[in-house]
């Protein structure tokens, strides 16, 4: 950390310590550790049911782990409620789309910047001065930084649930970005997309991770090995709630245990396409 107390690249921004999470007799997470450094793309992979999404939900606060500690920027956030965690700077996208179906794309993205606006019922109902100014500034930000980045200019006024799946995934990323998070949890952003959309999505993830404007630390859950191995800095492999390994992509790819757990005896790089 620097003098001002801000995180610098390479500092541990998110730390999970010995997380245990069980649903009845199913041990979803069994003592998992994770250290995400600022500026990284840290992937979590594993076969179905490995506990990847549960881990996301634990970081996010939707689940409370039975044992273990979660630290964000050095502070224990075990007892912090989900909406407070969002205010701290943890954004999130979902595996199954959780967009606001009835709202337009623009309103969906505007929703994400909720915590950055200030109007209440009184100032909101009058809508002059400050409220109007902040709404318009927010709109400018969204248009210039997010809609432009994600290339969704043409659909900004369309209702979200009418859009094709690939675009909905993009809108969801935009909504999470409007929160201006420091860490973004991406839960299978490429699931169900075609090759072109996967390439676009990978590009967006690299953009938000590397561009000076964003510099968002990403925690990525993904099944597409090609993408994971290409873009991540570190990879954590889970299998039925247990950590198999945590390391650089090359190490992980060559780890025989990973290959066995994840793909049976086959080559790791043979993916679904």
């Amino acid at each position, binding site marked *: 950390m620097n003098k001002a107390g801000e995180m610098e690249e390479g500092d541990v921004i998110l730390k999970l310590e010995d997380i245990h999470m069980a649903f009845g007799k199913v041990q979803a997470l069994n003592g998992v550790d994770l250290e995400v450094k600022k500026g990284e793309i840290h992937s979590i992979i594993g076969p179905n049911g490995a506990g990847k999404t549960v881990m996301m939900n634990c970081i996010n606060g939707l689940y409370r782990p039975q044992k273990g500690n979660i630290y964000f920027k050095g502070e224990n956030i075990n007892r912090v409620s989900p909406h*407070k965690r*969002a205010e701290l700077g943890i954004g999130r996208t979902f595996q199954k789309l959780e967009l606001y179906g009835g709202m337009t794309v623009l309103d969906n993205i505007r929703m994400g910047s909720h915590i950055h606006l200030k109007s209440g019922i009184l100032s909101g109902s009058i809508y002059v001065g400050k409220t109007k100014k902040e*709404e318009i500034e927010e709109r400018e930000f969204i248009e210039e930084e997010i809609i432009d980045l994600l290339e969704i200019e043409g659909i900004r006024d369309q209702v979200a649930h009418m859009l094709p799946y690939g675009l909905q995934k993009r809108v969801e990323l935009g909504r999470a970005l409007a929160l201006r998070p420091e860490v973004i949890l991406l839960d299978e952003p490429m699931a169900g997309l075609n090759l072109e959309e996967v390439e676009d999505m990978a590009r967006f993830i690299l953009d938000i991770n590397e561009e000076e404007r964003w510099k968002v630390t990403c925690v990525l859950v993904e099944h597409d090995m090609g993408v994971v191995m290409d873009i991540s800095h570190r990879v954590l492999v889970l299998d039925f709630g247990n950590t198999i390994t945590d390391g650089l992509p090359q190490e992980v790819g060559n780890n025989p245990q990973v290959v066995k757990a994840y793909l049976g005896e086959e080559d790791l790089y043979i993916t679904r396409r």
Partner: protein
Amino acid sequence: MTRGWLPCGDYHQEYAKDHGWWQTNVIKGKMILLLLIVSVGFPLSLGEYWLGVANMIGYTALGALGVQLLIGYAGLITLGHAAFIAVGAYTSTLLILRFPWPQFIISWGLGYPISIIIAAIVAGLWSVLFGLPSARVKGFYLILTTMAAQFITVDFILTQYISRIGGRGQAFSLPPGTIKIGPWLIDSDLKVYFLMITLLTLTVMFMCNLLRTRVGRAWVAIRDNDIAAETLGINIVWYKLLNFFVAGFIGGIAGAFWVANLAALSPEHFPWSWSLWLVGVILIGGAGIDGAIFGSIFMVMVMEILQIIAIPLSEYWPIVFVNFAYIKDMAFGLAICAFLIYEPRGLSYRWWQVKNYFNLWPFSY
């Protein structure tokens, strides 16, 4: 929020314009014309009777706007909104009749306007009290807790205790001359009409503004997907309670208006069926603020037309007039069934379709 498309060839160059209520000058002109018609044209052209009907429409619309806010915008299904209207009405009445106002407030005619605001706040807080269970329960279970609000408030507290105040039986009546706004004594349907138009316009304005800012979006977010809303930093419980407060606030305004309209008050004016009726109004009206208003116009007008038909019929079948209350209920039920089957999206959707047809004409594809 869905909105109509702009007419062919119109586009904005500033974000502020895109955020505006009235997107083009044509729309602005039309809305100002509408405002002129309702505030000048109707009072000049309509007789006392139809002004009374218009007041009933306004009262229904004020009530339905609160219900729309709860059910339509935040997804909190309520079947007890009449309770909050009743709380507003009783607060206002008691303030007018019993509160020792300083002389200058009475002589300046501020008693009633102040009582409207206090009634609205009290109704809002009362509504929050019964909204507290919404932190834990959703959907059908919430219906039950709001029904509890209805029965506890109206059938128990108001009937058993509040309406006994003064010892004159069940009903309060406001003597002529007590309801005064500034220099104007509210004593005719015309003046009540102007009061109604003012209150309704202000409420609609505030609601429109609220719904295009952060609070309104948070409500819609909770309705559409509460888990995602939570991960975006929305305090769900707080915003649900805020929604109950604003809905109750609008209900309180409706109640205080009812006092001016009728100059009498009894718990029988706020039965459970009135709560149900308001939900029916927004079912028929459809989504949005305009839905609540279209629904109110439709329901009240249907009842009026039924009455007009029933009066000549009753010469031949007196039973029609005797049982008119049941016929009304039947028509209400039929209307809801018909709308759910043939136009589940309500009148406002039809209106939206008509508008867009003309906006996009001649390039409707």
